């Protein structure tokens, strides 16, 4: 720490990954995250790492599978349509209990959609990034500095719990420039005795695999994985609360949207409305306890997203009927304005603006 750099989100992500010992990167070009690959291609060959532009997103995620199996920190990055292509590999990585970090700089969908910022991959990220019973660690940074800080956490937790971690950013974060500080370069990484690095004819072969043809065996591995998930839910939730202590109206928002909401909350306060913000930093595990506790004391809640309403379902599950939960969202690449959000808060507080 110390020196500050003015950097684009996507480049800061790449530098943060390298500082955290990830020198094997496999990517495929897609807007709005291509600067990650460009940065990696500039730096990695000079420090003995691998930058490889794969033939497809599918190949890239499977290269990550291979590299991670062999004991190195590996990463890939993409944007929404590319992440859909990666979902096969993500499921295999989860089923093989392999760590890795995947970056999704979200853009509007469905289909080819657009290239402007969006948060419409929340369901994909938190519920179903591939077939089968599994979860990913999902981090939702709101500033370029937070992306940098979460990169180390993502790699560390992915290794600790042996599962893929996803950093869910959006086109706004990827493209914006902010001053950032970086951590010292990590030189020592945790041992991976399970990795396929060659037996040296001194141990039994290590096998990385997700196939279990016997139902009871497969059930056991899935149940064991979910026991691990319970530990994660207990210990790894990260959430920011802003002006929530005396709040009567709480807005729940993540990522870049939370920055807009923060301004709106401040404007509401200036008008005498006791508004607050809950900002999930981990989307899985979801900060359900924080939201449930808040639901007991507020008049109502509002969820704001750059989507037609995806996280709002998790908010409603956490609130469990204890207060009303309304939703405001823009989609297709449109970022909600502070004025729009303020208007929604005012509506909750009785209409006056």
């Amino acid at each position, binding site marked *: 720490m110390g020196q500050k750099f003015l950097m684009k989100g996507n480049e800061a992500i790449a530098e943060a990954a390298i500082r955290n010992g990830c020198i*094997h990167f*496999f990517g495929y070009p897609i807007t709005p995250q291509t600067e990650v690959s460009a940065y990696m291609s500039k730096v990695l060959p000079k420090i003995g790492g*691998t930058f*490889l532009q*794969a*033939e*497809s997103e*599918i*190949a*890239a995620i*499977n*290269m*990550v*599978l*291979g*590299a*991670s*199996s*062999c*004991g*190195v920190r*590996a990463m890939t990055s993409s944007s929404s349509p590319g992440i859909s292509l990666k979902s*096969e*590999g993500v499921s*295999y990585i989860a089923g*093989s209990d392999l760590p890795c970090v995947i970056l999704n700089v979200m853009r509007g969908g469905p289909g080819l959609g657009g290239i402007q910022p969006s948060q419409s991959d929340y369901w994909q990220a938190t519920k179903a990034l591939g077939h089968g019973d599994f979860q990913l660690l999902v981090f939702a940074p709101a500033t370029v500095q937070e992306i940098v800080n979460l990169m180390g956490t993502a790699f560390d937790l992915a290794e600790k719990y042996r599962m893929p971690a996803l950093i869910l950013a959006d086109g706004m974060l990827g493209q914006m420039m902010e001053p950032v500080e970086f951590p010292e370069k990590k030189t020592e990484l945790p041992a991976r005795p399970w990795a*396929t*690095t*060659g*037996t*040296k*004819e*001194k141990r039994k*072969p*290590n*096998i*990385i*695999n*997700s*196939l279990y043809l016997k139902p009871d065996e497969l059930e056991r591995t899935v149940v064991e994985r979910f026991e691990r998930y319970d530990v994660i839910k207990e210990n790894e939730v990260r959430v920011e609360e802003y002006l929530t202590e005396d709040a009567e109206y709480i807005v729940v928002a993540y990522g870049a949207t939370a920055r807009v909401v923060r301004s709106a909350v401040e404007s509401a306060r200036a008008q005498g409305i006791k508004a607050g913000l809950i900002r999930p930093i981990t989307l899985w595990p979801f900060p359900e306890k924080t939201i449930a506790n808040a639901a007991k004391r507020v008049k109502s809640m509002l969820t704001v997203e750059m989507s037609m309403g995806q996280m709002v379902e998790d908010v409603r599950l956490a609130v469990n009927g204890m207060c009303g939960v309304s939703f405001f969202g823009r989609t297709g690449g449109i970022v909600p304005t502070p004025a729009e959000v303020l208007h929604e808060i005012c509506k909750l507080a009785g209409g006056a603006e």
Partner: protein
Amino acid sequence: MASFHKTKGLTDAIFHYCPGCTHGIVHRLVAESMEELGILGKTVGIAPVGCAVMAYDYFNCDMIEAPHGRAPAVATGAKRANPDNIVFTYQGDGDLAAIGTAETVHAATRGENITIIFINNAIYGMTGGQMAPTTLPGQITQTTPYGRDVTRAGYPIRMCEMLSTLDGVAYAERVTVTDVPNVRNAKKAIKKAFQTQIDKKGFSIVEVLSSCPTNWGLEPVEALKWLKENMIPYYPLGCYQDRTEKGVF
């Protein structure tokens, strides 16, 4: 006097392959090659999806089970992580030449220093005998019940010929295991492919024409005869590329 013994390259697990299937022979050749080259302790094998999916239980080295068709991409990641390891994939025709065509072609053209053992038996075995990319014109399978009609299903792919046009390929040879001389040739080719990788010369592939008595609906001996009479004319044996002296870069 030399005695017949089981190679150290195989574990004690019992093969699940059907009687008369040639996977067993090829497994043995790959395992013997690794043992003889002294690379068992530093080899990482990549198993496919298909009949050989459980190859990770049979080869006595570190193993990764890849998604369908993705073995060359997984192998690429493995090799780039630890370039001193020897990395091979073992793939069938559906895996390598249909769903994984892109991964195969691009690993080859990158000159990825890996070895591919390609089992071509002109059919999808594991799923019960459907048309493969290498199914012969007129060949009857579960999904070509009237014989492969090329006007509807297109033509088979000759992978060695196609890959041999790429600059990254150091060694591509097609062999078979229908009889003792051919088994000996196949062993020589597989060993040469591994040696190509050990010498860091580039991408190597050995295509092995194999039989599938179960899904062809033939007795094992008849199946070998069918292979000789039908597959070899369409897929001629031989070396299609050899840049093992100079290497590809």
